[in-house]
């Protein structure tokens, strides 16, 4: 938050919809190291506008969402397949994301390399990303290139396997292993998140492993897995394509019909895993040695799935705890006492379940145990005294501000339409989503802090190599 950011950044924050999402990068197909970003932006106290759209379904089950926006001669295509790392089977963690990479390696009528070359020659760019619940693929380009993007997407949806081979798999396996190294293994604290997931959820839970997966499982992925995954999940009846930008609906409907209607419906999609949200059974203490200068303390609790009635109050709680300079932990630990270098808190609610985390890095000369004590003191104050109206207003106003910015680009809008369509069945659900935050009361926040953060938690201490004595080993009062 208030930390100066003076190095180049490729963080994908702009499209995160949560206040403070996990400080772990979402696996995406590629990142361009030289890209500079315009400083992120937000807005407030302004009604979230309605998005005009049309949604229909082809006979083969493909959902189509169209939204015209003629403000600039651009268009974005954004396709969600309703499969993610939460659907992976034992021994194949990371496979959904590895498969995402393979989707760019060409298909029956698209030789290897041409997916990117043809799009670039038309002024287009593309990428994809995977999380626990879904995989998305997207292109953004000048409006005249829309037929090309649709044709490329249709070819890989309908005809990926005829040219699939071991070489494509092996190549992208190496790329993904390097993605894992670049984003997790060779990054300070990079393995903390997956360590927490494994402790927070039982092994059968779809969120108990990270989307990037383990090196061992990535090595084990076989060509037959690629084929079977495609046949199971990559069917039109498991996908939604959102097209936003400068086009005429009638002509785009004809194109969609031409390119996608001949792709046969697949077999029924296996039901997504069922989970029961419940606290961790007892307090759990973990330690992880890493190549770091400073230790770091992580608290994690089970919480709720997205759009649960306690979801928005938990988002507000995260903001009040560490969302701005006046937030409880930032003000006390970072600003006033200056015993911590940084703090963060986030409510990570996903489609099936969710978790809540607080992270603190002590300054040199201070210990994770000191941090644990201070955090617990502040949490106790929240459960006894609650929050002020001003704290609530800061959280609500800052949150409301984010809704408008997500609509600034065609691509952002397309991803929002798909997100809400998947989570609520209504593509234009942003206004209802925003309204949830306006309804949160100070009592709601106090209640959720008691009911979720008062339960047993996972406590992870990441320590410099050889400094296991810094581990927080018990419940600190």
């Amino acid at each position, binding site marked *: 938050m208030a930390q*100066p950011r003076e*190095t180049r950044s*490729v963080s*994908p924050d702009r499209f995160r919809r949560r206040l403070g999402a996990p400080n772990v990068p979402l696996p*995406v197909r*590629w990142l*361009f*190291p*030289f*890209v*500079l*970003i*315009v*400083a992120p*932006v937000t*807005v*407030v*106290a*302004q009604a979230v506008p309605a998005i005009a759209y049309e949604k229909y379904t082809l006979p083969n089950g493909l959902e189509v969402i169209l939204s015209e926006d003629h403000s*600039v*001669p651009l268009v974005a295509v954004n396709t969600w397949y309703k499969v993610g790392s939460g659907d992976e089977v034992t021994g194949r963690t990371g496979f959904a994301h590895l498969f995402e990479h393979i989707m760019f390696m060409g298909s029956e*009528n698209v030789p290897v*390399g041409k997916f*990117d*070359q043809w799009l670039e020659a038309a002024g287009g*760019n593309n*990428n994809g*990303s995977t999380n626990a619940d879904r995989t998305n693929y*997207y292109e*953004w380009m*000048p*409006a005249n290139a829309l*037929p*090309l993007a649709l*044709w490329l997407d249709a*070819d890989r949806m309908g005809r990926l396997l005829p040219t699939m081979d071991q070489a494509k798999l092996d*190549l992208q396996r*190496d*790329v993904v*292993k*390097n993605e894992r*190294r*670049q*984003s997790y*293994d*060779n*990054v300070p604290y990079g393995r903390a998140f997956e360590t927490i997931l494994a402790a927070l959820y039982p092994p059968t839970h779809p969120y108990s492993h990270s989307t990037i997966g383990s090196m061992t499982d990535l090595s084990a992925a076989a060509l037959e897995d690629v084929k079977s995954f495609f046949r199971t999940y990559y069917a039109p009846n498991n996908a939604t394509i959102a097209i936003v930008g400068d086009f005429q609906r009638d002509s785009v409907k004809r194109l969609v019909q031409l390119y996608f209607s*001949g792709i046969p419906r697949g077999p029924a999609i296996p039901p997504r895993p069922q989970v029961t949200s419940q606290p961790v059974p007892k307090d759990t203490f973990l330690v992880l040695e890493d190549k770091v*200068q*400073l230790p770091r303390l992580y608290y994690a609790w089970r919480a709720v799935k997205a759009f649960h009635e306690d979801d928005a109050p938990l988002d507000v709680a995260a903001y009040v705890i560490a969302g*701005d*300079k*006046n937030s409880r932990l930032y003000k006390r630990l970072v*600003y006033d006492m*200056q015993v911590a*270098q940084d703090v963060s808190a986030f409510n990570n609610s996903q489609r099936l379940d969710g978790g809540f985390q607080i992270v603190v890095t002590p300054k040199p000369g201070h210990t994770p145990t000191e941090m644990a004590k201070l955090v617990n003191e502040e949490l106790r104050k929240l459960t006894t005294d609650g929050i002020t109206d001003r704290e609530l207003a800061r959280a609500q*106003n*800052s949150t*409301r501000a984010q809704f408008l910015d997500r609509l*600034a680009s065609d691509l952002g809008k397309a991803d929002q339409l798909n997100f809400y369509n998947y989570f609520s069945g209504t593509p234009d659900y942003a206004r209802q989503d925003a309204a949830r935050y306006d309804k949160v009361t100070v009592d709601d926040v106090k209640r959720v802090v008691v009911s979720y953060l008062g339960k047993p938690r996972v406590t992870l201490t990441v320590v410099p190599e050889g400094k296991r004595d810094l581990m927080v080993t018990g419940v600190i009062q």
Partner: protein
Amino acid sequence: MRPRRAYPVTRNAAALASSAAWLIAAACSHSGSPPSTTAAAPAPTPTAAAPTADLTKPPVLGAPKALTLPDVVARALPNGLRLLVVEQHELPLADFVLVVKSGGETDEPGKLGTATLATSLLKEGTTTRNSLQIADQEAFLGVDIFANSGWDATTVQLHTPTAQLDSALSLFADIALHPAFPPAELERLRKSRLTSLLQVKDRAPEIANRAFAAIVFGSAAYGHPLTGDEASTNAIQQADVRRFYDTYFRPNNATLLVVGDVKPDDVERRARALFGGWERGTVPPANYGQPATGKGTTIYLVDKPGAAQSSFRIGGVGVSRTTPDYFPLTVMNTALGGSFTSRLNQNLRETKGYTYGASSGFAMRRTPGPFIASAEVVAAKTDSALIEFMKEVRAIRDTIPRDELEKTKRYLQLQLPGRFETTGGIAGQLAGLVPYDVPLDFYNGYTQGIAAVTQAEAQRVARQYLDPDKLAIVIVGDRKSIEATLKATKVGDVVVVDIAGRPAM
């Protein structure tokens, strides 16, 4: 999720200035309505037709629409503050960006990091608001205010819904014009910065950036880290940050960019009320110094024991933003390492699988900035990756085949409209021109400038600016496992250095 638009051609470390500087319909008249501008569309792809029913062939595309660049209304206040306004009424939002044309290049020896520290302090107290009050108002209004100092420029940016314009602008102007530099806040930021400097040791890419700049630029500008080092951080006094502010934060050294749901007359009225009393000053030119001429190609190895990957930074001194070779360099570099299908990424990632991504770029600054090719490479392939990097640097000096050149040019031309999609995007493009006094109509000629690049021109600039025998190659990785194999490549002598580029043992 979405990578920012990849545009490595130029790089401007000012927070707002995005990599590519380019734009825009000019209106340099003092006031009045500027001409509406339409840049010529690039040559369409070969033919245009309705989609074919032959699903085995990619569709033939129609011609792209002619690009209409937004108008920029340019005005000036009596005190010299330049005002640039772009109307964009799609959403009720506005960006106000104060660009001060001085940054870290003004840091004095022994006080490196002064500009960034002074800029960070802008939000830590004004003559009427303390740090926590500023933060409280920002959050309560739901606006964002950023203050960042880079090379050649410092920016203070406000992003606000237009409904909050009055309160937000008064907060923004107070931060920009009335900083108090409270001693307690300076000490707090000093302590925080010292801790951050300690944590730099955790991150190989950051170590590589610092070592590369030090080796290529030495004591000239751009050679030190913008946030300084431990000694300089300890040395900076309140008088130093105040001196930076008082010297360079002057209306005659600044431009206020405004993009969004606003009207130029209203913006001018507000600017006069808030910034009209800002006093002119004499702004001395920065001493950029002169980087030492490059030695023969040398491998500078920084040890990071146990690193899973090796961080590569390969290059040297490049060009300034006002280079006459802007367009040929842009095309040549895009083919080499400026897009996903560029040679470096195709070879090191999509063919060899050594990395998650490889790229290159010219950081075009007031005086020549660096050319850098970079990647994070799996440790076991460090030597192989170096050989491939060198192969590509040599190969781009040969002819770029016509097909590849045309694809690259079309990519650059057709991407242009995408950079004007949002208020932040437009502001970013303008902010990339302002520090270098690039005319505001620069991007009216962009499409033609790219179109004019020939194979011969691309080859000329590759040969002129990329010399495989004079490269600084910085590699941060696990010395124990990579030093011997790097020596065996015989690409250059291997010198072990520290994070500041000084010989280590």
